[in-house]
């Protein structure tokens, strides 16, 4: 893993150098190295874009895909319930997994959102989520297990099928072709975030 990380870093430096890109200077002149990146304490700086199945995922370090196993993992106590509800239809539901809350989830006034995954077709699941008080619209994001973006949705409802509309299996449209993850953000009338789920795993 260490060798791979070094290779990636070197490659990036070469590309940056050959591209004639200069280093970025900050307004305060501060700098940090990746190894000291977590300025803030706790898990909030390390799980923001990482797969939910492994809080200590090595994805960002190795550049390799995260473990896609749906096996339950443990993490720090979570004020949010990003797990799949027990009533979820089995084929599209991964076993409960928790991840530490990130900065959005810890903001004052941001309520936890619980996402439930259901549907007969595991590749095109239906997502349903709880509505925080004062929420008027939502954004849903679907990624594959490594965090690569797959699909997103915005709207006022609290349920949507992957792809936005039910379709027959032979009709083309967004579909999961492997394990993934979903997350919902809730917004108030003024557009501010009033709720957030964690990344909820999806199994196919």
């Amino acid at each position, binding site marked *: 893993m260490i060798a791979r990380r070094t290779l990636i870093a070197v490659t*990036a430096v070469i590309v940056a150098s050959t591209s004639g890109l200069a280093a970025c200077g900050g307004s305060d002149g501060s700098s940090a190295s990746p190894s000291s990146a977590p300025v803030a304490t706790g898990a909030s700086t390390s799980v923001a874009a990482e797969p939910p199945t492994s809080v200590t995922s090595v994805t960002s370090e190795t550049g390799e895909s995260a473990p896609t196993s749906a096996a339950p993992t443990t993490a720090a106590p979570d004020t949010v319930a990003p797990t799949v509800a027990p009533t979820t239809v089995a084929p599209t539901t991964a076993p409960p997994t928790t991840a530490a809350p990130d900065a959005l989830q810890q903001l004052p006034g941001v309520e936890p959102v619980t996402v439930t995954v259901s549907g007969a077709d595991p590749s095109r699941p239906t997502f349903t989520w709880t509505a925080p008080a004062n929420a008027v619209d939502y954004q849903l994001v679907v*990624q594959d297990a490594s965090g690569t973006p797959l699909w997103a949705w915005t709207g006022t409802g609290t349920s949507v099928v992957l792809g936005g509309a039910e379709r027959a299996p032979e009709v083309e449209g967004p579909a999961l072709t492997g394990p993934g993850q979903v997350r919902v953000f809730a917004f108030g009338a003024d557009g501010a975030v009033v709720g957030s789920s964690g990344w909820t795993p999806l199994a196919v």
Partner: protein
Amino acid sequence: MPPRRDVCTMLAMQRTKRTSSVVTGLLLTAGFVAVGLPAGDAGANAPVKSLRDGNWSGTMAIGATADFSRGNVGLIASGSGNGRFSLLLTGGVASGDFRLDATGSSNLEASGANGQATAAGVIVGELQGTSVIPILTPQAAHFDVSGSVTVNGFNQPFNVPVDAGPEELTQSNLVITSSSCTFASGTWAQEMKAAVQAAGANVTSFRGSWAARFTGAGPAAPDDALTNLLNRGEAVLTRWIADGTFDEAEMESVLVESEQYAVSSGTNDACPGGEKGTWSSPLAGMVERLLTAIANSPTTTAEILRFGVAAGMRTGVLPSIDSPLESTLQAKAVEVYNAAFDANDTFSIQMILISALSLQWTELAQAATEALQP
């Protein structure tokens, strides 16, 4: 807030089909260390940019011509109208015809004179080229250019008919944003050389998006639903560029209706290369134009960027594969983030964080996360 974290974007890098290598390059002044390089497959929906053999029924929507370069703030000319094309691909060779009914308006400004001009008319021509680059080859155009110009306080109306032949009209490409077994879409631009310029107007080009539906062996047929969707989407974009009003609700309606339209419009069971998860939105070209504007406009807000990112993912335009679009969007996100940080604008930082989480812009997400720490 903690001190602002340096985040800059390696603009030269972009996702590729195999490496998914949009790098949020945190190039550090001390050591040129880049981190956060995701790898792996870029997803099942890496866009195909060629059209399969058979008949395609297409529609073109005319939108805004914008320029954000060299200090320009956006709208050069507003456009409206639409066109249709019938495209047949045989062994990868394109043939067919098109008709574009277009109206374009712009302000005229010259030393000592100003005014406004509108060009309304029609361009007809043939489709040539290949499955990768279909080419619009205009054969004839007629436009009525009308308006008024004020010189030294005197207003002079004008109305000039313009007829142009092939020599005064340039070929242009139907640029493919994405395609699948059932749908294809992209962008186009039609320049009109000196013909209209000679008439005194600078309404010299039309730009917009196009979408097409595969009709197989059957003939292409007008698709009013698709035309309506494209026109409404382009109208939202034009208005935003023109006066700064971004009608999120209308754009969302267009997105919803396009999904319903796509569900009702065909299957991929006749496509030999069709794979599950491979798809194309008929709005991909229109959304690409929207995202290009978002990535370049000085009026882009964190909220508009968040909405645009979601629309891009919703239509398969994002993550962008083999295209600089995502990296320019990321650069805009960094710019907006930095401004939000300096202004202690927590709301905007939240919006940027959501965009960064959505597209796995890891370093920007981490910086925004840190900025939101109490």
